[in-house]
């Protein structure tokens, strides 16, 4: 069968598109972490208002749960994945760097004191901005801008208000874009 140059170009375009459709598989991570951090922040905020000494209980329960769920999803994804895209590779490295940075910041929270959450919000903004730019999803970019604004404000407010800013930051940077990503994933399927 003789192929015209146009048919060949169409085939190339179609194959490139089909190979790149797997970008949306990461939606569970954004939804899990977005929900966990938002709920834990709000629980601590409410408990602090009620002078409850166990105000960090939300973090103690939700962070290990989110970590466990993430490990389950990574395992599931690794089994399912039959290809690795260049962008996925870059984003994996970015998330690794983010994890290390966040760990260093959080274990030094005693030294950073009230500066901890603003720095965390900056880290969220960086990771979300890079994800959004790489995946070309504007909801992430908007979320990252909101996180940067929240970070800038958080340096000047009380710990309780920082918790609300953190909740708002992850809502716009992780949870809402994550849900949108899931929708795109379903549409592409």
């Amino acid at each position: 069968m003789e192929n015209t140059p146009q048919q060949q170009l169409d085939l190339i375009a179609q194959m490139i598109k089909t190979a790149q459709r797997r970008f949306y598989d990461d939606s569970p991570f954004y939804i899990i972490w977005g929900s966990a951090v938002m709920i834990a922040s709000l629980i601590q905020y409410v408990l602090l208002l009620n002078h409850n000494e166990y105000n960090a209980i939300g973090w103690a329960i939700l962070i290990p749960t989110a970590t466990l769920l993430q490990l389950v999803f990574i395992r599931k994804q690794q089994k399912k994945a039959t290809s690795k895209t260049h962008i996925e590779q870059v984003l994996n490295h970015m998330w690794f760097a983010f994890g290390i940075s966040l760990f260093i910041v959080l274990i030094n929270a005693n030294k950073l004191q009230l500066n901890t959450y603003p720095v965390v919000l900056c880290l969220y903004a960086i990771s979300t901005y890079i994800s959004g730019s790489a995946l070309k999803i504007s909801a992430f970019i908007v979320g990252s801008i909101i996180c940067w604004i929240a970070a800038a404000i958080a340096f000047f407010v009380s710990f309780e208000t920082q918790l609300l800013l953190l909740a708002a930051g992850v809502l716009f940077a992780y949870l809402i874009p994550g849900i949108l990503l899931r929708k795109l994933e379903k549409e592409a399927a």
Partner: protein
Amino acid sequence: MFKELDPLLHSQLRLAIISLLISVEEAEFSFIKEKTNASAGNISVQLDKLQQAHYIKIEKSFKGKYPLTTCSITQKGIKAFKDYTQTLQQYIQPTKNK
């Protein structure tokens, strides 16, 4: 003058495989089979031809208990693909390349 199209890439399946591999870091055999809808036998033959030309690299390993074939494009393959698409463009818009 039209440049000659690379005969190795001027086949539907081989071009489809190279186009898939150009857009990913690496791909498993099952991914190529799923996306091209071609038979396993046909894909194996074409992968072999592309490997002999050093356009792609094939690695054989195991995923659990099952054998796994992973393919990735080489620098030579990327260059061949680039030249091929440029030549195709020349055929479509000949005036631009005179």
